[in-house]
């Protein structure tokens, strides 16, 4: 097996899963079976990573590079996807808004898009992967056709993503116009060498590119869609949007920024710092008195992406490690939080269970679920012994090392504001039960959902107390991105000029 083929094994497995699921749908529509096959496909892809790892890093056509960085985040994406699948089954099952099978197909397509994003080292593949992800997400978001909110969220996402894509493409075109290449590595050389930092085409292009990326990451000022879509989309999908799509895009941004060597360009750093600061402050402020759990989580994810940007700004090995760990923590935490919402909700109902009032006294009616939710919220707030704590410390570590005073100040202020609304939810969870508002009737948590949440909590606490494995892994994989003179040559075997 050639190294390139071996390295792309996870992707091939994923694609095969797509085809298999599609064929299965054609043969027999069986929700449980399709969900199981999907989960198996994802897990097989995950297993394939182990097989692919020794071959990395290797360039698979000039468009893709499979390296440790790719595989680390791919693993993250796959784990998150599996969790979403497990959470989705019970969420979808038993409602009349079938069939459910295309849901899994779309999920796999989206995952493939996200995975491709992680491996992209060129604008064409980047853009296509991004759009594959987006288009599949639209289908997922609007999947409960019976819900006005879901449809609305779908059209909003479609149109706004379209606008942002147009900006993104225009920006890419400008960069291409300026440099004549779309390969990140080549751009990196040209950006610092041939062109001085006065070239307005490139900067304008970068800013427009950032508009597109910022939209996907829901960074301020491109953030407004996020709460609406989070609220409207079905809860597992919301978790997926919040985690998989963001991890994919962020990893891409990180790779792009490192490869193009943006760290020597104060203009670029300034733009990103501004966006990061705005995201941390405004995201948290917007969540402050919000009464809808999904919207709170949406705003909080805006802020969290701001925090990771601090790690990106810091750069260096520690910055990348910090970002990697942070995204891992973010994935576990956010999937968990939305998972709790998901197991309390059903596709068939008009809304998800997302009013804050609905969570009143959950601790006394469903202690395990509420405890898990509390753990996730504490992790979001960055409080030990959770992954969120270590993650925040890591990000701050990277920021302190590079003296990012203003972003760090925003981080601290934002975190304090953030505490307030996380605590508000916790307070509601623990407050005495009010008889007037019973929880939506639901027999119990499905075993898949319960298992998923349990595993997530164990990960959350376990890796919060003993984060060494993840850090070590990140150190060995993603951090390889940084000394790019060594690894990137492989990406330039076939120059696109």
């Amino acid at each position, binding site marked *: 097996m050639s190294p390139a083929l071996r390295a792309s094994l996870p992707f091939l497995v994923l694609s095969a899963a797509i085809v298999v699921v599609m064929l299965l749908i054609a043969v027999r529509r069986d929700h449980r079976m399709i969900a199981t096959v999907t989960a198996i496909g994802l897990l097989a892809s995950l297993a394939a990573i182990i097989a692919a790892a020794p071959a990395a890093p290797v360039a698979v056509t000039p468009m893709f590079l499979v390296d440790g960085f790719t595989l680390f985040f791919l693993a993250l994406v796959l784990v998150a996807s599996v969790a979403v699948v497990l959470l989705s089954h019970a969420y979808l099952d038993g409602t009349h808004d079938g069939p459910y099978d295309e849901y899994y197909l779309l999920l796999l397509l989206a995952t493939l898009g996200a995975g491709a994003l992680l491996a992209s080292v060129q604008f064409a593949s980047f853009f296509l992967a991004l759009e594959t992800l987006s288009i599949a997400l639209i289908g997922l978001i609007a999947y409960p056709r019976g819900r006005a909110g879901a449809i609305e969220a779908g059209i909003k996402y479609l149109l706004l993503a379209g606008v942002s894509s147009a900006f993104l493409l225009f920006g890419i075109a400008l960069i291409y116009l300026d440099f004549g290449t779309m390969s990140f590595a080549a751009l990196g050389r040209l950006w610092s060498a041939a062109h001085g930092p006065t070239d307005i085409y490139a900067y304008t292009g970068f800013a427009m590119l950032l508009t597109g990326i910022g939209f996907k990451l829901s960074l301020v000022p491109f953030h407004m869609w996020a709460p609406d879509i989070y609220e409207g989309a079905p809860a597992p999908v919301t978790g997926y949007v919040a985690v998989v799509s963001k991890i994919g895009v962020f990893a891409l941004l990180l790779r792009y920024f490192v490869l193009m060597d943006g760290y020597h360009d104060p203009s670029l750093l300034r733009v990103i710092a501004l966006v990061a600061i705005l995201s941390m402050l405004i995201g948290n402020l917007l969540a402050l008195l919000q009464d809808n759990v999904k919207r709170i989580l949406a705003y909080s994810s805006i802020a969290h992406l701001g925090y990771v940007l601090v790690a990106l700004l810091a750069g260096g090995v520690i910055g990348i*490690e910090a970002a990697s760990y942070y995204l891992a923590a973010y994935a576990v935490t956010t999937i968990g939080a939305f998972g709790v919402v998901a197991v309390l909700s059903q596709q068939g109902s008009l809304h998800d269970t997302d009013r804050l009032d609905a969570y009143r006294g959950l601790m006394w009616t469903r202690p395990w679920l509420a405890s898990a939710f509390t753990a996730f919220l*504490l992790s979001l*707030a960055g*409080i*030990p*012994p959770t992954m969120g*704590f270590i993650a925040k*410390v890591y990000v*701050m*570590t990277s920021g*302190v*090392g590079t003296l990012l005073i203003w972003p*760090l100040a925003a*981080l*601290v202020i934002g*975190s*304090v504001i953030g*505490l*307030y609304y996380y*605590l*508000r939810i*916790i*307070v509601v969870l*623990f407050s005495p039960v009010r008889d007037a508002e019973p929880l939506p009737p639901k027999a119990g948590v499905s075993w898949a959902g319960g298992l998923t949440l349990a595993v997530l909590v164990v990960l959350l606490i376990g890796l919060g107390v*003993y*984060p*060494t494995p993840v*850090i*070590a892994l990140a*150190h060995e994989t993603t951090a390889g991105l940084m000394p790019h003179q060594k690894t990137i040559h492989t990406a330039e075997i076939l120059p696109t000029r």
Partner: protein
Amino acid sequence: MMLVWLILIPLLGGLLAWPAARLRAAAARWVSLIAMALDLLVLLLVWLRHAGPIEITGGGRWIAMFDAPWIPQLGISLRLGLDGLSLLLILLTIGLGFVSVVISWTEIGERVGAFHFNLLWTIAGTIGVFLALDLFLFFFAWEIMLVPMYFLIALWGHENRIYAAIKFFLFTQGSGLLMLLAILALVFVHQRTTGTLTFDYFRLLGTRMSPSTEMWIMLGFFIAFIVKLPAVPFHTWLPDAHTEAPTAGSVILAGIMLKTGAYGLLRFVVPLFPLAAIRFAPIAMLLGVIGIIYGALLAFGQNDLKRLVAYSSVSHLGFVLLGVFAWNALALQGAVMQMLAHGVSTGALFIMVGALQERLHTRDMRLMGGLWANMPKLSAIGMFFAIASLGLPGLGNFIGEFLILIGTFRVYPAFAVVGTLGVIAAAAYALILVQRAFHGPPRDAVAAPDLRARHLAVMAALTVAIVYLGVYPQPVFDMASGGLANLQTATHGVLKLAEGDPR
């Protein structure tokens, strides 16, 4: 390894107490008591069986030490150490832990298991704070101790508990983040100069940095600790938190948690940043003095009994701040003594208020008065501790305050003089407390049973403690001197350079 057990026992006890309450509520209480007893046993074993001090280069002598890797990539390890200072504070922690369990016996009737879980975890976190010698571990423990405390206030507190709990959490967490930034900055500066990334306390001692850097990093630590202490102007969370917390929460909060702030100042701020601390000392001491006066004035003005006691804590801990930054043997010993005595006396006052609230369902002194007629024991004990808190000679608080002031007088006489004036204000608020609650004409509505045996036993123990501290404090000084010597060893060389420093 014994040191790890010191932290683990309450943690495990908490985990056990929660399900135990499903069997019987009393089971959780007994589990907590046993956990505390075991912890005390372990502490005594560590203390009595240590085979001579462990010498740390540049870090003094230690009774016991533990070290294991944790996150080696970041130079973080599980380093725990016990010296005289931490031993005393852990002793106080365990003692007040006992007290908290006992006084909650009847007060807490709901969700008993969860209550004891949170109680024990807070205690574990606090012990961790007193033991940690790795800055990251310290911060970890620092945070761990806050979360259960938040729940204690938010779930078992009084009317306005949510507000108070959130306020408490925001203040301490916000300042904690500042401290984290400062820790990281220190670690980075150290890495830049020596090339090793480490959070080890001993290695970070004596890190070289420019004066302005040192000052900034020191301020990060300083603010976190004086928020916790609390010192003016960061004290405003305290009255709310104290007022709304359940009695055991108030006891732990006032008796132990506030001490972590002082401990941080002692263990970290001055030894790690001696020059900056000395330069900053006048401002810090000014804050301390302001706290003494301001807290006393506010205490005098309160109608809520718990708020009064809370503000008196602000005043008392102003003395500690003063003592720490005077940084001579007298003032430091005074600060330690003040911490212990404040823990005992204020804890007792909170128990007294809690007992009153349990009986009268109010803390408003306007609705009290003349309680002596109905509850002579409670009133007498309340008065005793009020008087202890005003610093009557012969009781622990006096020793603390006097030593702090006499130590401060050598360095900054003006602060000592103003601080001494605070003693007058202390008399004002302590006596107005006695007057408004216990004296005056008895009210008809006030008819409630006096203290019962369980409370009396606790109060008797605390009384003995405070009298002991006042009459025969030398063993405490001997114990503390080892720890304080460690601290002063760390700053010794640097402070010699600071010219004309009379310490």
